[in-house]
């Protein structure tokens, strides 16, 4: 889908048609429906619990969006969460001040990301294979460091902070670092040359290289950021549950990737925006929360979310196929003389 046809449509159509706004619209519908129909969903605790539950997914989804936009994937994020959690626990237990331990955990996350990034960007290995390997590697390190035990002694100021809410709003404090990061990532992705390079890489990394994008460094940076943010999510995770365990956040990577794809990011790279991703994460969170409140079992919840994801991915492909067919027939109708103009073959149909 090129950018031209979207700008040519009336605003209301553009808003309805983009994947981001479709997800946001769906989110609003589900929230309204739940408030009206699901018992206790309108209770004061729902917002707090919901945001606390999705916070690690929200955080990691930000850099994961970048990774997927470049056409790569990072399956090791949940293992980085586990590893940073365990490091935080082990170091705190050994008597290191909490802040020091947290810095080491963050650094370890960045190193994990750098390891992935090096193998993908500079060695040129496929990210799927690399991060399947590091998924096992980082998780193995985490479980190896702590075994089946758990560290549960953390300074109460910090564990309280992780669960605290802003005033009486019911909004957890963790939303603040998330918003800061979200704005940072949005600016980086939408308004910087680095961000434009990311999209170019996803569309065609050969072409991106010719236009002066440093493909290797960009990919490397994106993986380091993912490791770093995953480690931060690991610190939050540890504090929220007051427990550092090797198996913390097992399986979280799939929830993150599912939410990113639901939010309209193309798994083939080159397309997707952060607002849609945030809405995707929240949509999954709201659906799970509402269904749990109605006593729906976890298996049924997973089936519904799985179907939703399949439907959303399918809708993209179907729409793209339809749009390709249409633009082809349009080009034929518009006549050959218009096609080369401005190098945008589909531009003509909207003025005809």
């Amino acid at each position, binding site marked *: 889908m090129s950018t031209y*046809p979207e700008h040519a449509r009336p605003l209301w159509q553009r808003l309805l*048609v983009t994947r981001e706004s479709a997800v946001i619209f769906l989110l609003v519908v589900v929230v309204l429906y739940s408030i009206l129909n699901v018992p206790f969903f309108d209770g004061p605790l729902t917002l707090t619990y919901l945001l606390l539950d999705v916070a690690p997914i929200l955080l990691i989804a930000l850099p994961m969006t970048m990774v997927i936009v470049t056409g790569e994937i990072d399956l090791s994020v949940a293992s980085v969460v586990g590893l940073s959690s365990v490091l935080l626990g082990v170091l705190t237990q050994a008597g290191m001040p909490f802040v020091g331990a947290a810095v080491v955990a963050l650094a370890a996350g960045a190193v994990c990301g750098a390891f992935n990034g090096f193998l993908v960007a500079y060695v040129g290995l496929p990210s799927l294979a690399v991060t399947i390997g590091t998924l096992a590697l980082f998780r193995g390190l985490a479980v190896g460091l702590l075994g089946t035990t758990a560290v549960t002694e953390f300074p109460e100021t910090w564990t309280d902070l992780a669960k605290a809410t802003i005033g009486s709003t019911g909004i957890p404090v963790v939303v603040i670092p998330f918003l800061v990061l979200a704005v940072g990532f949005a600016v980086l992705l939408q308004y910087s040359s680095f961000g434009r390079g990311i999209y170019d890489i996803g569309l065609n990394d050969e072409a991106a290289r010719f236009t002066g994008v440093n493909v290797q460094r960009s990919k490397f940076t994106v993986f380091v950021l993912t490791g770093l943010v995953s480690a931060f999510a690991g610190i939050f995770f540890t504090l929220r549950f007051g427990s550092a365990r090797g198996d913390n956040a097992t399986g979280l990577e799939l929830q993150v990737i599912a939410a990113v794809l639901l939010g309209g990011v193309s798994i083939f790279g080159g397309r997707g925006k952060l607002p849609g991703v945030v809405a995707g994460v929240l949509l999954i969170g709201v659906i799970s929360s509402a269904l749990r409140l109605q006593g729906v*079992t976890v298996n049924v919840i997973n089936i519904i979310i799985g179907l939703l994801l399949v439907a959303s991915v399918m809708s993209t492909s179907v729409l793209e196929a339809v749009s390709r067919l249409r633009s082809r027939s349009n080009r034929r109708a518009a006549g050959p003389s218009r096609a080369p103009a401005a190098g945008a073959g589909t531009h003509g149909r909207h003025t005809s």
Partner: protein
Amino acid sequence: MKIQTKRATALAALTLSAAMVLTACGGGSDSGSGSGGEGGGGATTVTFLPKNLGNPYFEASDAGGKKAVEEFGGTFDEVGPQEATPDAQVQYINTVAQQGINALVLSANDPTAIGDALEEARSAGTKVVTFDSDTEPQFRDVFVNQASAEGIAKSQVDLIAEQIGDEGKVAILSAAANATNQNTWIELMKKDLAANHPNIELVDTVYGNDDDQESFDKTAALLQSNPDLKGIISPTTVGIAAAARYLSDSDFKGKVQLTGLGTPNQMREYVKDGTVKGFALWNPEELGYLAAFTAQALVDGTITGKEGDKFTAGDLGDYTVEADGVVVLGEPTVFNADNIDDFDF
């Protein structure tokens, strides 16, 4: 222009139908099991939260809980995560707090990590009963323990004494040499044997490390070095199954008695082929049944969880809360050829 309108309409239709599918799912489940927390004033609402769903042991305990809740006219619900992790369990504890359920009965995936969530649920008025796996005592009202160490030791000694005619040489096949549970039971068994069964001699204790093959080999070695052995006690589910497999294919079948702690599903074929006459384990269904009645007693104020509180748990009879808010189910259930087909876990 015409084309775009059609496309926009198609997208809008798609979005709407997706929304409708979603809401339909939500609505459908409402009639099914949405009775969750609407009780409020009337019937006691009890939610069972096992370590994970799809585990036969917890299916049995939850069935017991459901039976109990139906007996006292409450509303039963069972929820749980797919993976036995504390963070997944916290989401369900939070849901229970939101719903204002009267009592939560759970088997903890971590003794501390779910503590805060339990405290929040309790401050919202929910009574918390743990069973099978406890949390730190401050996070729950009562822990329903499957069996006391004394009860477990005594039932195994009684079984072997009965099976070998209260005299002869016996040996123990345990798990790891440093397994706390097993060592406590073995010490108590030794005391019980010395005090009440003077004609039974404990000749050896070997360790199979809860490994099937190792337990199998240790059983073979034990019988080789003690040809006049009359019985083996294996207080671990892995050990007893491996020993039974060895015995059932050997000349010792029926001559050397085997008992201990095992699950009916593991031991069924050896009970049926005559290798094993009887073995013990607590009954998870009774455990769930007792946990539900404990929850009811907490909700209606019969007990508060302090030592000495007394209550009646339906068919199981009277119970007293012990130190640290612990209620003990009682003696383990003995499984033999007559009753083993009544159990599936």
